[in-house]
């Protein structure tokens, strides 16, 4: 049996004021949490990867001589072990040294970790509980910074193209831990073929108004003889007053058994 206690006007006012105070406290905490975050707004692009209208040649001629990033199968700076080297050799043999032809399957983006070194500009949407990294090819990373752990192993989640990321802030540095990344070359033929057991650790910080810098350490005993570090650097993308996202509506790339082709337009 319950007892009903009538709310007097005074009690009602007290409850209302208390609820309002709680709401203001939460709002103040929310504002304070945002205020502690660095400003990574804007559109950013991996430094040195900016390309001309052909989509291939760097806008900076010096970049043409830069080595391949260690997230790409072409890199000669990856400390492959025998198993890793065998994977690379197999990819190269199967594609006659041109693994880009594997993308006629229609991969819509770079996948992780290649997207962090690629020429597609990115946005970092920074919130207290999560940072979202997204590029126009719909590569999407959610980095939870709310204190949660990785997906529980006992739940059996399979690897994904972008993996499972958690992170935290050390002052203005975002520290990211990523596991559960499907073999990158499964999605994008030119990606370095790390194993699905690879562990990726990143640190990113805005070091100047026009620069975000950091590093990625890849640990993958299944394919590497030792952990490997990849330097990361991003600069503002020119003329990008907004990011336009779209699907692949006009894929005219064919394949004649030797080379890609340009298919005749429908109209």
């Amino acid at each position, binding site marked *: 049996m319950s007892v009903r206690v009538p709310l007097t006007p005074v009690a009602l006012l007290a409850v209302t004021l208390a609820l309002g105070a709680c709401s203001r406290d939460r709002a103040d905490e929310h504002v304070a949490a945002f205020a502690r975050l660095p400003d990574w707004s804007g559109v950013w692009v991996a430094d040195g990867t900016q390309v001309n209208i052909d989509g*291939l040649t760097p806008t900076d001629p010096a*970049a043409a001589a830069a080595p391949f990033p260690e997230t790409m199968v*072409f890199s000669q700076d990856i400390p492959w072990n025998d198993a890793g080297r065998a994977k690379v050799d197999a990819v190269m043999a199967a594609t006659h040294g041109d693994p880009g032809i594997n993308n006629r399957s229609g991969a819509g983006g770079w996948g992780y970790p290649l997207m962090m070194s690629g020429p597609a500009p990115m946005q970092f949407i920074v919130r207290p509980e999560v940072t979202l990294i997204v590029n*126009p090819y719909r590569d999407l990373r959610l980095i939870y910074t709310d204190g949660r752990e990785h997906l529980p192993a006992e739940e059996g989640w399979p690897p994904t193209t972008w993996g499972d990321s958690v992170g935290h802030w050390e002052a203005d540095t975002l520290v990211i831990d990523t596991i559960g990344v499907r073999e990158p070359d499964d999605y994008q033929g030119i990606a370095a073929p790390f194993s699905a057991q690879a562990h990726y650790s990143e640190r990113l910080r805005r070091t100047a108004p026009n620069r975000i810098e950091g590093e990625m350490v890849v640990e993958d005993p299944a394919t590497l003889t030792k952990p490997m570090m990849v330097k990361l650097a991003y600069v503002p993308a020119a003329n990008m007053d907004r990011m336009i996202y779209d699907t692949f509506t006009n894929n005219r790339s064919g394949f004649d058994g030797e080379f890609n082709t340009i298919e005749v337009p429908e109209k």
Partner: protein
Amino acid sequence: MNKKNCRAFPGLVLAGTLCAGTALAHHSPAMFDDKQQVTLTGTVRVFQWTNPHCYIQLQVRDADGREEEWSLEMGAPVYLQQQGWRPATVKTGDQLTVTISPLRKQGEHKGGLLLNAIGADGKPLGKPTGKTL
């Protein structure tokens, strides 16, 4: 790491030019003969501002006066956008002079990779906005 790193990968058709950003494309660029540059002048039939590539369909008269259409591939919209291009930068009927790397295997339907484009006013297309988000 050194320059040799990006130039010596065996078996890669375009290894001499494929480094960093150059190799990160939707598909292999080996289809284009990057040792050749061809200049074409013609009339735009259509400009496709689309993923994964933009295309200009350019109608060009050959040496015998016959009109043929070239499919000229470009980068994705997001790369053109960074160079100051917008969907209305090229319109149907525009007169263009373009430099291309032709397809290695030209069939009945001609094609190539568009390297640069000059408008009827003699100026390169694309106008930097200077705006960023």
